[in-house]
Structures are given as structure tokens and as C-alpha cells.
């Protein structure tokens, strides 16, 4: 059997504690890199004209982590990047706290920018995480995006 290639030391995680931007950014940043681009998704104090109190995030954790790993793999395939970190927080988040933090390092800046943008755009469409927004006058599950589903086949074909 072939030796497995050593995994890229990307940092891919779901966490409950506040996100530490500094250590995550340091994780991807090396002497060979000329660029590090980061995206910090924060809890806004308002949503569609209503004042937000806080958010609750929940995830289908095993699948969410698998989908985040898929995104990291895609980044390495599509862009000449060095390392990527994608960390999403779950549980109750207060205004101003970071819900998701993405850091990408690369030799030249276009790859880091494009990969970071691709990562958050794909995460928002494909990673099974949901947020419930709490306002002074109620709470709603945020409108979300429909992940791409595989095409339907004919109704299950009973084997004989």
C-alpha cells in the first residue's frame, strides 16, 4: 500500500469558545508566504432593520466538519496557496463576536484573496450550520441558502 501523503497542516475546526484570531492567523503564516488574507465574520447588531440581541449557531457537526475539509481540499486544488484555516464557532454568540474566521496564506496575493473569498462563499452555501437570531421581540431561524443536492434518480430500483 502506498504511504499516505502527510496531511497539510490546515486548521479546520468547529469550536465553542471565542475564536482567537491571532493564533489562527499565525497558524497559516510562514516565512515562505508573501500574503495572508483573512475573513472575520462577526455578529452584527442588526439584521434586516431589527436590533439583534444575540445569535445561536448549531451545526450537523460531523457533516459540517467534513464539508469544511472538502472546502480546504478544493482550495488547494484551485489556488496556489500555502495553508488555510477555517474555524466556525457554535453556540451562543454576542454582538461583535466572530462566528467564522478564515485565514489563507500564499506566496502571492491573488491566490490568498481568491481562495479566502471562495472559502467563505462555499461555506455559506454548503456547510450545514444554522443560526437563530434573537431580537427584542422574538427569534427567527435566519434565511439560508439551499445547498446543491445531487440530481434525483428514478425511484429506488428494487433489486430482485
Amino acid at each position, binding site marked *: 500500500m502506498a504511504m499516505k501523503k502527510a496531511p497539510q497542516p490546515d486548521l479546520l475546526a468547529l469550536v465553542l469558545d471565542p475564536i482567537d484570531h491571532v493564533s489562527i492567523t499565525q497558524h497559516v503564516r510562514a516565512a515562505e508566504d508573501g500574503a495572508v488574507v483573512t475573513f472575520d*465574520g462577526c455578529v452584527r447588531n442588526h439584521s434586516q432593520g431589527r436590533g439583534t440581541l444575540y445569535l445561536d*449557531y*448549531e*451545526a*450537523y457537526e*460531523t*457533516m*459540517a466538519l*467534513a464539508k469544511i475539509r472538502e472546502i480546504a481540499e478544493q482550495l488547494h486544488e484551485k489556488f496556489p496557496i500555502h495553508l488555510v484555516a477555517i474555524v*466556525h464557532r457554535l453556540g451562543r454568540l454576542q454582538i461583535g463576536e466572530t*462566528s*467564522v474566521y478564515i485565514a489563507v496564506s500564499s506566496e502571492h496575493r491573488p491566490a490568498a484573496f481568491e481562495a479566502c473569498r471562495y472559502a*467563505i462563499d462555499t*461555506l*455559506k*452555501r*454548503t*456547510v*450545514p*450550520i*444554522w*443560526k*437563530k437570531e434573537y431580537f427584542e421581540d422574538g427569534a427567527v*431561524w*435566519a*434565511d*439560508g*441558502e*439551499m*445547498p*446543491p*443536492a*445531487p*440530481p*434525483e*434518480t*428514478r*425511484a*429506488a430500483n*428494487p*433489486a*430482485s
Partner: protein
Amino acid sequence: MARCSLAGYNSLVTLPMQTARVKVLFFGRLKEIVGRAEDSVELPDGAPIEFLFSRYGAAHPELTPFRASLVASRNQEFAAWSTPLHSGDEVAFLPPVSGG
């Protein structure tokens, strides 16, 4: 291995219907409607995900309007509603995702 049809098994076949036990997960709004995050159910082996959802829809009619906006998964992969289920599968009905 004999499989039943969705309408029931063929009574001419003497083998008992194969059943499958699958784990079902609910998230977000669906979890609130069904009142639980996780379930374990028995269904005819090979029955599609759609069949499983219909069952929950029968028990919780409030679920039905969500059907068009849901995506299904089987074993942590997005799956067509026609995907057949077997014992040990983990199924989830995923509302539009809103992470990030």
C-alpha cells in the same frame, strides 16, 4: 437478497420483508417541529429518503410545507431524495444553511 416494494412486500415471496434501522437527525426549525434532534426508525430496506420524510410529514403535518426548501443527506453527504436507505445509515433533513 429480497427487497420489498414501497407499497408493501410481495405476499407471494415467502421471505420476510427486510427492514433497515436508520438514524435520523433534525436541525433548526425541523428540530423544533419534531421535538427531537435525533430518532432511530425502522423502515423497509431500500426505501428512499423521500419515504422516510413522508412518514414524519404524516406525524407532523407542519413539516410538509418545508419539503421544497430542504436538502437531504445520507451518511454526511448530500443525497437525492430517491436515495435508498439501508441499516446503519444516518439521514438528515437539512434546512437552508445559514452559517458564516
